[in-house]
C-alpha cells in the first residue's frame, strides 16, 4: 500500500505544478472555503473544505483545500489536525514550501512537523556544469525529509549509472563525475537523474531530466611572455663623460712625446705640421664626441636576463605543447538540466 501511495505521490509530484496563493480554484466549493478563510470564518472553512474533499477536484485544488484546513486548524490551535492536513498537502505537492514571513508561526511549525513525518525527496537540483571528462563532477542536491536509504541514479541513453547511495537525512549534496565504470565519460544524450528513498515499506522517488553533451577541450595558446616579467633593452646608453676628449688627448700626446723623443738632434726639430693636422683632428673629434650622445653599448646583465626569460618561455611553451596533446585526447562534458 505504501509503495502504491509513493508511486501515486510521485506521479502527482510530476503532474501537479506548485500551488500559489494567486491560483484561483475552479471548484465553487473550494472558492467559497477560500473566501470564508479570508473572512476568518474558520467553522465555515472546515465545513466547506470537508464538503469540497468529497467532490471531484484537481490535484492542485485538493492540495489547496488541505492547506486551508491546515491553516484553519492551526488558527484554532488544533495542531495535530493541522499537521495531518499539511501531510496531505506535501504528499500531493512534495515541492510545496511555506513562506515563514507570510504564514503564522503555528501554521509554519505544523507544516514543518508534517514534512518530518512523511518520507519525501524534495528540491532535487542538478546544476549546469561543464568540465573536462575525468576532471570535474556534476553537483546534485536534494532533501530527504526522513532518515532513509537513498539511491541516486542517472538513467538514459548510455544505460543506468549509479551516482551514489547511502542512508541520508536532510540536505544531501552529491558530486557525480559523469563517468562509466570503465572511467570513460558517459555518452552524450538525455538522462534522468532519479533519487529513490526507502524507509521501511515507504518509498519515494524524485527525478530531474538532464542533457549531457560532449565537446572538444580548448587548447592552451603558447605564450610570448611571462606575467610580471618583461624583456629588457639589450643596449644601454652610457652617461656622457670627458673620456673621448681625454683619450684623444692621451693618444695625441703620446704621438707628440714620441716624436719629440725620437727626433734626431743632428737633423734638427722635425716639422710639426703633420702632427698638428692629425692630432688637431683627433682632439676636435674627441671634443665633439664628448658633447654628443654616447653610442649605445651592450647591456650584458640585460642580455643574460633576456636569455633566461626566453629559456623560461621556451620551457613553458614545451609544457603547453605537451598539455595540448593531452587536451586533444580529452572530452569536454557539459551537463544542463532540462525543464520537466
Amino acid at each position, binding site marked *: 500500500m505504501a509503495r502504491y501511495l509513493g508511486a501515486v505521490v510521485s506521479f502527482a509530484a510530476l503532474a501537479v505544478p506548485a500551488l500559489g496563493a494567486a491560483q484561483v480554484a475552479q471548484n465553487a466549493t473550494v472558492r467559497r472555503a477560500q473566501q470564508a478563510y479570508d473572512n476568518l470564518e474558520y467553522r465555515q472553512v472546515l465545513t466547506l473544505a470537508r464538503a469540497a474533499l468529497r467532490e471531484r477536484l484537481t490535484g492542485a485544488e485538493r492540495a489547496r483545500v488541505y492547506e486551508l484546513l491546515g491553516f484553519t486548524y492551526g488558527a484554532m490551535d488544533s495542531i495535530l489536525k493541522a499537521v495531518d492536513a499539511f501531510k496531505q498537502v506535501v504528499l500531493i505537492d512534495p515541492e510545496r514550501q511555506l513562506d515563514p514571513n507570510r504564514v503564522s508561526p503555528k501554521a509554519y511549525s505544523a507544516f514543518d512537523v508534517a514534512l518530518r513525518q512523511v518520507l519525501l525527496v524534495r528540491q532535487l537540483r542538478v546544476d549546469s556544469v561543464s568540465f573536462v571528462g575525468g576532471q570535474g563532477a556534476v553537483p546534485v542536491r536534494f532533501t530527504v525529509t526522513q532518515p532513509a536509504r537513498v539511491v541516486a541514479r542517472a538513467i538514459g541513453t548510455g544505460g543506468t549509472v549509479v551516482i551514489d547511495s547511502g542512508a541520508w537525512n536532510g540536505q544531501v549534496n552529491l558530486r557525480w563525475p559523469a563517468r562509466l565504470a570503465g572511467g570513460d565519460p558517459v555518452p552524450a544524450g538525455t538522462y534522468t537523474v532519479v533519487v529513490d528513498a526507502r524507509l521501511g515499506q515507504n518509498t519515494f522517488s524524485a527525478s530531474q531530466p538532464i542533457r549531457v553533451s560532449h565537446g572538444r577541450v580548448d587548447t592552451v595558446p603558447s605564450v610570448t611572455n611571462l606575467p610580471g616579467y618583461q624583456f629588457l633593452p639589450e643596449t644601454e646608453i652610457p652617461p656622457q663623460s670627458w673620456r673621448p676628449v681625454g683619450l684623444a688627448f692621451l693618444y695625441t700626446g703620446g704621438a707628440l712625446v714620441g*716624436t719629440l723623443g725620437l*727626433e734626431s738632434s*743632428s*737633423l734638427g726639430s722635425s716639422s710639426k705640421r*703633420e702632427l698638428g693636422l*692629425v*692630432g688637431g683632428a683627433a682632439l676636435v*673629434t674627441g671634443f665633439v*664626441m664628448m658633447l*654628443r650622445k654616447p653610442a649605445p653599448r651592450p647591456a650584458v646583465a640585460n642580455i643574460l636576463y633576456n636569455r633566461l626569460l626566453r629559456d623560461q618561455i621556451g620551457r613553458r611553451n614545451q609544457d603547453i605543447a605537451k598539455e595540448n596533446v593531452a587536451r586533444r585526447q580529452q572530452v569536454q562534458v557539459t551537463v544542463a538540466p532540462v525543464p520537466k
Partner: protein
Amino acid sequence: MTRPALGALLLGLALRPAAGQLLTVGPQFVLSDYREVAAGLRYRGSGFGGALWARRDRLSVEAAVVRVSLDPADGSAATTGFTATQVDVWVAYDVAAYASVEVGVLHRNADPEFDAQSVGAVRVGARSFYEIGPGATVVFRANYLAAPKFSGGGRAAVSLDLGLGLDIRLAGRLHGTATYAFNRMNRKTNPGGTGEIDAPIQETLARVGLAVQF
C-alpha cells in the same frame, strides 16, 4: 713578401668582402717632411695616395701607398727635389679589446734614385685603438723597423716608427681618415772604409682622406 704577392693579397681582400668582414678603401692627400744626414738637407712636399683597411674577426690588414713630391725646404742645402713612393703594410692581430700586435713592411723608393735613400724594412710592433664615440676611433702605434736596407748601403740598428690615426664614420659607408706617421732611422754608413759615420733619416707623414666601407 714579394710585390706581386702583396698586390694579389690586397686585390683579393678588396674584391671579396665576406660576411662579417669589413673593408674600407679610399684616396688620401699627403703632406710630408723628410730629412737626411744633416739638418741642412730637408725636404717638404705633398702628394696623393690610397689606403685599404680590412678586418675579419681579430685579424686586420692595413695598406697604404703614397706618392709625394718633395722639394727642398727653405734653408735647405739641397738643390733639387725628388719623388718618393712609399708603401706601408700592416697585418695585425687583436690581443685585447683595445690592443693589437702587428707586423708589416715599409718600402720607400726615391726617384731619381740617387737624390735620396730608398729604404725597405720589416715592421714589428703594437698598436692601441679606442672608440671614442659612435663611429670614431683613434689609434696609436709604435713599430720597430727591423733589418732596414738602404739603396746607399749602411745599417740602422735603431729604427722606429710612430703613428697616430683617426677614423670617423661621416655618413653611412663614408669614412674620413687622418693618419700621422713619424719614423727615424739611425743609419750609419762606412764610405770608403774610413769608419762609420751617422747618416740618419727622419720622415713625418700626414695622410688625410676619405674611405668607402664595403
